[in-house]
Each structure stands twice: as structure tokens, then as C-alpha cells.
């Protein structure tokens, strides 16, 4: 089936199998491999995207459900060559180890700071509770979120 959606502000179309996820369509059909494919069951958050402005796991959205909707992926956060403040904070804080969880964490952090520009530690923990870092690099990730909130 033909799926037509807006990704990072631009119209895109793809032929999708009816049972495939938005994540699969983004990565394999639409040229947006930034969202990572890991657990495919909403446990790890590495495929986090904004769907009509709401943080979701792209693996749990049917590609067909995204028809006519707006998606923001990690690729859509930077302004040209200039990194999004959250991306810059992750770089500066060394919050990236293997990097697999980073796109999801960056999108989830950007979502948090948009809603709550000066979050408490508990708020940060809650907001990022759906994103797993397999390297267990949470301390630096925390530093990055706090730094992004200050910037």
C-alpha cells in the first residue's frame, strides 16, 4: 500500500507492506536510518520519534497508521550543520558510548526539555525510563540532559 507522510517537515511517500512498522518504513524505505531497530517491542526506546508531536516508539506504530501524519526523527533535530542543543550536549558530555541508544535518547530528551525546560532529576529519570543504554552509560547521559537544560 502507498503511505504518504510528512517527515521532518517534508512530504514523503513509500510502498509499504500492510503489516510493517513505521520504524521499518523509515529505515528501509524512506532513507531515515537514524531511528535504531533493536527490541521491536517498545522496551528499549532506540526507535523513539515524535509522531504528531508526541514521543512514541516507531516500532509500535503501523506504517499504515502514519499515513497523513507528521513524524520528526532524530535527523530532523539539527538546523543544517548546527546540532540541536541536546545533540551538542551529548557530544560535549561524552554521553555516547556505542551510540546505539543515542538517537532515541536525544529525541526523548528534546521532547522532555520542550515540555519541561528545567526538569528535576526525578523528572529526567521518568522521562527517559523508556530508553535503555546497553553500555549503562547513564551518568554521562544525565550530565548531558542537565547541560542541555542549562543551554
Amino acid at each position, binding site marked *: 500500500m502507498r503511505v504518504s507522510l510528512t517527515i521532518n517537515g517534508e512530504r514523503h511517500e513509500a510502498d509499504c507492506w500492510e*503489516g510493517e512498522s513505521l520504524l521499518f518504513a523509515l529505515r528501509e524505505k524512506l532513507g531515515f536510518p537514524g531511528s535504531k531497530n533493536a527490541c*521491536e517491542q*517498545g522496551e528499549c526506546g532506540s526507535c523513539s520519534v515524535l509522531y504528531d508531536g508526541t514521543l512514541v516508539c516507531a516500532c509500535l506504530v*503501523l506504517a499504515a497508521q502514519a499515513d497523513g501524519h507528521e513524524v520528526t526523527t532524530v535527523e530532523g533535530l539539527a538546523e543544517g550543520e548546527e546540532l540541536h542543543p541536546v545533540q551538542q550536549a551529548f557530544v560535549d558530555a561524552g554521553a555516547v558510548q556505542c551510540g546505539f541508544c543515542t538517537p532515541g535518547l536525544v529525541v526523548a530528551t528534546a521532547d522532555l526539555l520542550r515540555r519541561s525546560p528545567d526538569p528535576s532529576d526525578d523528572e529526567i529519570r521518568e522521562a527517559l525510563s523508556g530508553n535503555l543504554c546497553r553500555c549503562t552509560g547513564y551518568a554521562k547521559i544525565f550530565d548531558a540532559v542537565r547541560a542541555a537544560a542549562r543551554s
Partner: protein
Amino acid sequence: MDVLTPTTLVEALRLKAEHPDAWAIQGGTDLMVALNFDRARPERVLNLNEVRELRGFTRQNGSLRLASGLTYAEIEHGELRDELPALAEASRTVGSPQIRNRGTIGGNLGTASPAGDAIPPLAVERAEVECASVRGTRRVPVTDFITGVKRNALEQDELITAVWLSPSRAPQTFMKIGPRNAMVIAVVSLAVAADDELRACFGSAAPRPVLVTAPRDEASSFPERVAEAAAPIDDVRGSERYRRHALRVLTERALKRVLA
């Protein structure tokens, strides 16, 4: 596979009548896992995301009608928090922010898992499930709606359209045991409310929800009564013995909260 995407409830019910085998999908937090892992290949999926009537909630003569597409995030953060505190607490324990943004109350009832977090708080508020089809609409108490492990009373041509309840305004709480705060399938869960009677309902401790009631002055024996009403199993998440013990302890703690 075919995806049907109705934009009105009338159209959704007509499609469900024409294709009773179609799997309804709302937030996708259960069905997508089945699809991603090749555990299910339904011939048709009925995508309810575009049906506006299945969003939000309304009030009618002191009753609340929660549309089946109401998300956990909406319950957790919206004005329902004050009227349905136990349901709001339960919603806050579901999955992660990403899951709560998509998962819906109708999906929890449709999946009918014994671990469904919304079910105990709905049961202690004596909620009723609205089932609709082209034949009409009926309401089923939530404790009757869930008929077994992942089984419910929905007819083949029906959709879950709403949950009805009259908020008791009773002091109430929800508790859940699991290895961490987020992304936990309950080892056991419990909702307790206390007004002129005590009401409790548990999750992950029986194939279907049971509403346990007692007069207020029988609070001291209530934890034992709740534990006895359960029919837990041994599985990867916990043993039968642990679950029964946990229910006793949780009920005691919940009573301290709601009778304070």
C-alpha cells in the same frame, strides 16, 4: 494483509461486521509486538486511530464515559487524575512515556491480560465496558467482560467503544510489584477503595479480575480475604506463594493509605 482505516464510528462498526476476523488496532502496543515477532498474521487490521468518536472522555449526569482510545498519558496528566486517582496511579506505572502516549484503555481491555494495569482500578470503581456493533450497544461490568486469560466477552462483530463509571470519590490507591518502576509487567498489582465498604481487585493473581468487598469494620481481616480470593500461578515473574503473600502485604498497606 489488509489495513482498513475508518474515519467514523459508524464506518468502523460496519467494517467490523463485514470482517469479523479483523484485528482492531489503536495504540499498537500489543498488536505491533505480535506483528513484529511474526506471532500473528491477521488477514485484516482495523485501524481505529482516525475515529474521532473513540478519543477523549465525556460526562453524562454524573457519569464518566471514557472513550476506548483514551491513552494512559491522558489519564495520568489530565483532569481525570483527581476523579480517578487509582486509575491515574495505575496509568503512571504502565510501560514508559512512549508506551503511555500510545497505549489505550480500550486496548488494555481488548488484550485482557491478567496483568492489565487499568483493570483493577476500573473494577473497584465498578466500571462497565461499552461494546458496540451494527446491532446496537451493550454494557458489561468489567469483571464480567474479562472472561479468562486474554479472553473477553466481545462478540466477533463488536468493538470496545468506551468505559462507563460513576466516580465514587472514595479514597483509593493502586500498587504494583515489579523489578523496576518502568517497563514492568506486574508480578502482582492491587487497587483498593474505601467508602461505606472496602473494595479490592488484583492483577496478575487470577485468570480474571475478582472484585473483593467487605464492610468497613472488617478491615483487619480484609488482607486475608483478598489473598484468598486470588488464584495465582507459578511463572517466570513470581511464585503462587509469593503472589498471595504480596497481596496480603499490599492490601494492608493500601488500607493504611485509604483509611487514613
